């Protein structure tokens, strides 16, 4: 499969987001809500940093990404177009990556729009740009992980609503996984639950601190969810 065919798939995915209202609605809601929370913090808390903005963004992304990811495979399956795509001369991995990259392009657009907040901070104050750039990289990794989970849930569902609900469920489960540690005190499971939890890793991220462990964690989540999606498509063939 050529790069041309792969880029065609990505363009098709992107176009499909914008021929339906879903991308417009999700982006608009994200920009409005993140802008509102940022303004609220600046006016009433007077913090000249982006930590609280990133915190709000991560929760908004957890809420909004399932709306974008739910259609990736579930809608194709519902419309029978997955049967068409999977009989084209493209591999399952290419299909999954194309859908993921298109989804990440939308997510990037959402985050870029929210960067207006940084411009406002720069105009009215003198923020430390290091943690802001680090924070954006972190929030992008968090969104990339959410998108991976969303894609995986969509690949196992035939219904978009079910796909979105499963994604929220999984994201919440991973977010609060560290709570599970208290159920098994003085056990290796404490270590396990703390390390699979989004909330444990994301606290460093939104402060702009990117440790090797955090980086490995998020890249592993992305990689595992995409590999699992490819496997699901293969299993469903047989």
């Amino acid at each position, binding site marked *: *499969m*050529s790069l*041309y*065919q792969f880029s*065609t*798939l990505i363009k*098709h995915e992107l*176009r*499909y987001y914008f*021929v*339906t209202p879903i991308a417009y609605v999700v982006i608009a809601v994200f920009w409005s809500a993140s802008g509102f929370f940022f303004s609220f913090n600046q006016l009433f808390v007077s913090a000249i940093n982006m930590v609280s903005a990133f915190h709000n963004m991560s929760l908004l992304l957890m809420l909004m990404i399932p709306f974008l990811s739910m259609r990736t495979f579930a809608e194709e399956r519902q*419309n*029978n*177009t997955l*049967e*068409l795509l*999977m*009989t*084209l*001369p*493209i*591999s399952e991995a290419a299909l999954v990556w194309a859908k993921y990259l298109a989804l990440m392009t939308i997510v990037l657009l959402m985050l870029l729009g929210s960067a207006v907040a940084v411009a406002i901070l720069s105009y009215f104050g003198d923020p430390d740009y290091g943690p802001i750039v680090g924070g954006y990289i972190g929030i992008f990794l968090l969104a990339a992980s959410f998108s991976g989970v969303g894609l995986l849930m969509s690949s196992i569902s035939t219904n978009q609503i079910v796909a979105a609900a499963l994604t929220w469920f999984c994201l919440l489960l991973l977010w609060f996984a560290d709570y599970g540690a208290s159920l098994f005190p003085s056990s290796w499971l404490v270590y396990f639950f703390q390390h699979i939890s989004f909330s444990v890793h994301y606290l460093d991220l939104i402060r702009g601190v990117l440790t090797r462990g955090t980086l490995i964690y998020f890249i592993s989540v992305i990689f595992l969810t995409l590999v699992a999606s490819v496997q699901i498509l293969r299993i469903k*063939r*047989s």
Partner: protein
Amino acid sequence: MSGPLLELRNVWKRFGRYDVLKDLNLSVGKGEIVGLLGPNGSGKTTTLRIAAGYSWSDEGEVLISGESVYPNAPLSRSDVGYLPEKVPLYDPLRVSEYLKFLASVRGLRGQIAKGAVQRVLQAFNLSAVEGRLIGHLSKGFRQRVGLAQALLTQPKILLLDEPTNGLDPGQLVEARDMIRRASEDRAVIFSTHIMQEVSALCTRVVYLLDGNLRSISLVSDWSIGGTIKARVRCNTIDTLLTQISQLSPDIRSERIDQGENIFDIVLDCSSDLRGELSALLVTNGDLLSFQSETLSLERRVLKLLDEKEK
């Protein structure tokens, strides 16, 4: 190339404990249109999905132009055009956008892609609706767009799953013409429940029964029987009917004219009894008319099912 374009060799497919396809063998050559018949749930769609590369068989192999599809499945799929039972369309896209996307993802670029799209738009009379949203098209147009996408890259093999489902009589004739034209230089398999379609289009018919294929002859042939209708003037009808029933028990008679003892006799027979029956009729009365016809395709399918029951 003289060998078959598509070959399914010893294909098995199981869903749970149920064997849908059992050691299925099928080969289709260039210029052939094979009609795939079978009751609902017999595995027609599964057979086509395996041939198209959407579904994988549990055992056996699929060969395209003599080469095994697995493990280079994506590569071999360039040679196959496939129209699933439920036409796969993106409703929010325009017809031309949809076809351009599929041309590009199949590896056609620039002017070649544009040319391919124009060719199928014209071939399927879609030029007038190329700018319309697919979601706004009628069922007939949607089916045409589905057929058009299957033929975009001029594949060697065309697989159509119930391609005329839900079309009105006018659209049905059009679709048949399109399939006939498409078959000129490629191998075509299509599944259907409509016998007239098979008679009108196919060069060969196979019936999927118990997970395997049985061939059904398309040629009118007395070797499996037929129906004979005769009109006879006879004064000893009871004796005549007794003699005929010894040839075949499946006999019906009706008196047409009381005064002249004219009877219509209809005999269903499982072998060629034309000679014996005409001799009996001439011997026992005046033979006024004599017509015979071989079993229709429907009757041949029913006969196949009867044999299975036995």
